[in-house]
């Protein structure tokens, strides 16, 4: 067990950087997928036909009652069986996060839509827009503007949750740190370093969200 010196840091830095990039890639893709799917679910629950709305509600409430680790393990097990060929841990984790986070995003988006006055929808349809167009061009843009801070806060939580891909061995930042820490025999130093990285990224993110919120109120 040697000391931590410049050589060791130089040797492990690219590996940890790759891990951080994997985490960020998961974050961005799962955010895009989760918010899109979440918006569809939210609109279905508010304006869709009854059976579909009930189905969407079951989806959201069902997923929200299961631990994320369980969902990650499910997709890691099921995706190769469903497609009949090996699927990388990244793809199965990305699908798991998208499906799982969509349930949480959809609750935020639903509350955002419900905060928009009903007269907006009435005015939009009265001026000749179809219901779909009214949501697409009138309701959703206003709703998304109001809920941007909460969506971003949820995404900071999602970034922290990406560390759970540890259970399927995907080399995100957390897993890369853990692998390196155990290989080099420096658990204390590497885990404290990881904590510092997550703390700086997430607390800066949270502060930016607060600033955004304040600037939106003052407008």
């Amino acid at each position, binding site marked *: 067990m040697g000391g931590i010196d410049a050589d060791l840091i130089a040797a492990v830095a690219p590996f940890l950087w790759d891990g951080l990039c994997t985490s960020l890639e998961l974050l961005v893709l799962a955010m895009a997928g989760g918010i899109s799917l979440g918006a569809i679910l939210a609109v279905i629950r508010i304006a869709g036909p009854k059976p579909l709305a009930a189905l969407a509600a079951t989806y959201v409430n069902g997923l929200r009652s299961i631990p994320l680790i*369980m969902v990650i393990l499910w997709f890691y097990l099921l995706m190769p069986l469903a497609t009949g060929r090996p699927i990388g841990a990244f793809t199965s984790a990305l699908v798991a996060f998208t499906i799982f986070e969509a349930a949480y995003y959809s609750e935020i988006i639903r509350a955002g839509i419900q905060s928009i006055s009903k007269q907006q929808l009435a005015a939009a349809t009265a001026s000749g827009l179809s219901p779909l167009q009214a949501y697409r061009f009138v309701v959703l843009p206003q709703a998304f503007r109001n809920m941007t801070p909460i969506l971003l806060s949820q995404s900071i939580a999602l970034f922290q949750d990406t560390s759970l891909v540890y259970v399927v061995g995907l080399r995100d930042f957390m897993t890369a740190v853990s692998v390196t820490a155990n290989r080099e025999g420096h658990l204390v130093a590497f885990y404290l370093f990881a904590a510092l990285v997550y703390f700086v990224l997430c607390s800066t993110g949270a502060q930016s969200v607060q600033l955004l919120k304040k600037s939106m109120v003052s407008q």
Partner: protein
Amino acid sequence: MIYHWDWSVPISAPYLGWLMSGLAWTLLVAGAAWVLAFIVGVGIGILRTLPNRAARRFGALYVTIFRSIPLLLQLFLWYFVVPELLPASAAHWIKRDLPLPEYWTSVIGLGLFTAARIAEQIRAGIEAVGRGQSMAAAASGLTLLQSYRYVVLPVAARYVLPPLTSEFLNVIKNSSLALTIGLLELTGQSRQIEGETFHGIEAFTAATLIYVVLTLAAIAAMRALERVVAIPGVMARV
């Protein structure tokens, strides 16, 4: 790929026993972590509303730290790092004599993580009571302690019940992270059964259903509690 179904796996010996033991650990971790999280969370939440600036700063720092580091990493810090940083005698006791180190580490890690989230709900609840109430309490001669005890907290406690329900559900779900430091709770046991029998779908289905039942039971219990403590005429019917 061909999958051989066998739904008898999760309900036959020894695997049913594994699942039940996993369920017991899930409840033990979640229950103890909830007690710790509640006590610390209420304390930190109250600190954040006090007139004293240092107290508010401390509360805010606690919340920022515990909310900015992933729970998985927090568990690793408590399990691998903290014992190394303690004085030799304490570290020795933790490594050699502490019974069930995985269990107590999970409880402390999950409890202190959840406390930060509960503190935010408590603070919001106290702020929702409004300054008028605490000013009126002060004007009528109550001390700060008395105004919290008899005026602010009884009302705030009822405001925070619904958000505390979802934190309670989060504790149950987050207890699954204990498997990463070797505690075989429900998710860990279902993975163990998968490794042993290759009947992952059946094992995961059983564990998933148990989580859903736990969630529904917790929601029902909290709704009942809300009804029991509701202040007539003050709040919307629940």
